[in-house]
């Protein structure tokens, strides 16, 4: 605990911003590569431009929003079953 709280280089806002922009650039690059490389797919519809990109994005946003909604239904206090295990 002796170390300073701000010594975590990777958590500094400037660094985080740089990481995030790198990710944006990589995302853009991976989709643009679809123009250069023709992906051969067993299932034809997956050859659609940037198919995996939008599918990954939509899938994950949907996943998180659905899980968030589900939390309202299933969330309970930690001692719900009256046990104090783990």
């Amino acid at each position, binding site marked *: *605990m*002796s*170390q300073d*709280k701000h*010594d*975590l280089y*990777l*958590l500094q806002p400037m660094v985080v911003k740089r990481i*995030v922009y790198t*990710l*944006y650039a*990589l*995302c853009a690059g*991976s*989709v643009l*590569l*679809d123009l250069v*490389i*023709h*992906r*051969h*797919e*067993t*299932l034809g*519809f*997956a050859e659609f431009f*940037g*198919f*995996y*990109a*939008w*599918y*990954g*994005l939509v*899938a*994950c*946003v949907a*996943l*998180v*929003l*659905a*899980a*968030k909604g*589900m*939390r309202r*239904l*299933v*969330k*309970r*206090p*930690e001692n*719900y*079953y*009256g*046990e*104090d*295990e*783990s």
Partner: protein
Amino acid sequence: MMAWLANPGWLLIAAGLVMPFLPLRLRQGLMLAAPLLAIAWLWQMPQPTIIEAEFLGYTLTPMRLDGLAFVFALIFSIAAFLCGLFMLHLRNRMEPSAAMVYAGAAIAAALAGDLMTLFIYWEVTAVASALVILANGPQTYRLVLRYLVIQVASGLLLMAGAIIYIRATGGVDFGQLGLNVPGGWLIFLAFGIKAAFPLLHNWLQDAYPAASPSGTVVLSAFTTKLAIYALARGYAGTDILIPIGAVMAAFPIFYAVIENDLRKVLAYSLNNQLGFMVVGVGIGTELALNGTAAHAFTHILYKALLFMSMGAVLFRVGTINGSELGGLYKSMPFTTVCCIIGAASISAFPLFSGFVSKSLILSATAYEGAWIIWMVLLFASAGVFHHSGIKIPFFAFFGHDSGIRCKEAPPNMLIAMGLTAAACIGIGCAPGLLYSILPYSVSYEPYTSSHVLSQMQLLLFSALAFTILMRTGIYPPELRSINLDADWLYRRLIPQSFSWAQQRLTTMWPTALADHVLHNLMPRIASLMAMPGPAWGTGAMSTLVVVLLAFYLAVFYLS
């Protein structure tokens, strides 16, 4: 007798049985030597090797080594070695000994060529794994009994199914069964419980996070993958496994997103990865079965690695709740790197092990034209990266600064993690090694430009989704809570229905019989289900276990 003992599994079982009586150094030596010897033994045995033995008038097959059994027995032995290394610092005798017996029984079960032998080792894994959890302390007692009842119930179904099958067909061999043979459904259900099929799954998320830091690593490797092996052996090409596997792959990831206990998050993603393997078994082509075997192999390694890294955090910090962790990368740099390697492997990044095994299953699904299942598996692939690949390392090692500064994990843990991480990268970079030991010879090239690009698009945009949701504050925060799952049925609904009936009865049935039902029988049954009261709950549960075991013996000798 020799036919039973001449078995690599028995090497570990014997080591586990003598270990409690040995001094520490010898225990440690055995823990490492026995699995290594088992690996060497398996490696030099010709395939197929079949050893038979007469027992109660049946010709049993204590050992059948063929392509499928080899992959599973080998990875179980490798996992036993890595687990032994990871728990080498332990001073208690119970956990390492139980772990060795557990691993040995899993190896012996994978090598079992008949249903009776399979049943015996199936039950040994249940009891030994329960002891592994129990070694974490008396607070796990009630949970262990709950776990044991479910595991033993799986054994009961296996035995009942096997007896029906053996009586009807006269054969004891464990080969392709299918659902249409006599007893086929019972055995299917027995395998399904241990494979954590949807709604039968909750013992896994319940029990695994309750074990010690090393205990959970041990648990993650064997039981469920033994069930996958058994399904691949007995139910390859069984259509119903395809939708079951797809639901398994998708359903647990919703829970993983909102779960706070990071080891429970991993338990959910373990369940999700089993879904891929179950789909592979259901498709049942040579490519799909190779995919299942390969994915089980890589999965055991990267899952162990992830549980090791979280175990190391728990060991050093004392908690594994995402809400309390963060910013640990500087304190535990090596653990962080290993965790990220495990995360990249489970997420199937190119050059990491999951990429070369999961693609076999996805390709096999696409070749069958099963596009809905394929879309579900793709969704599950994106989702697993989202919660296992990003959430686990992010909340533990990055995220925000929790202020926790701790020591790096002990040397034996670091070596175990380092070796496992090296294996994950090795398989990812040189998949030919893994492909060469798969049960069928199939030529498959995972590193095509199409495949690498499509996978990178999927992963990068999943990461983009996480980043956007995180930076806009939409991502659900880590909260101290539990989430209701299928266990609510037997831990809450059924017991409460009993007490409801109890109240009704009190008002309208005031006889001596009702008195007995109310004050003796009902609380007993209710306690079996929920175990709400410490006074009589555990006693009743142990009674049930004993009754089930007695029932086995009775059926075994009467039939």
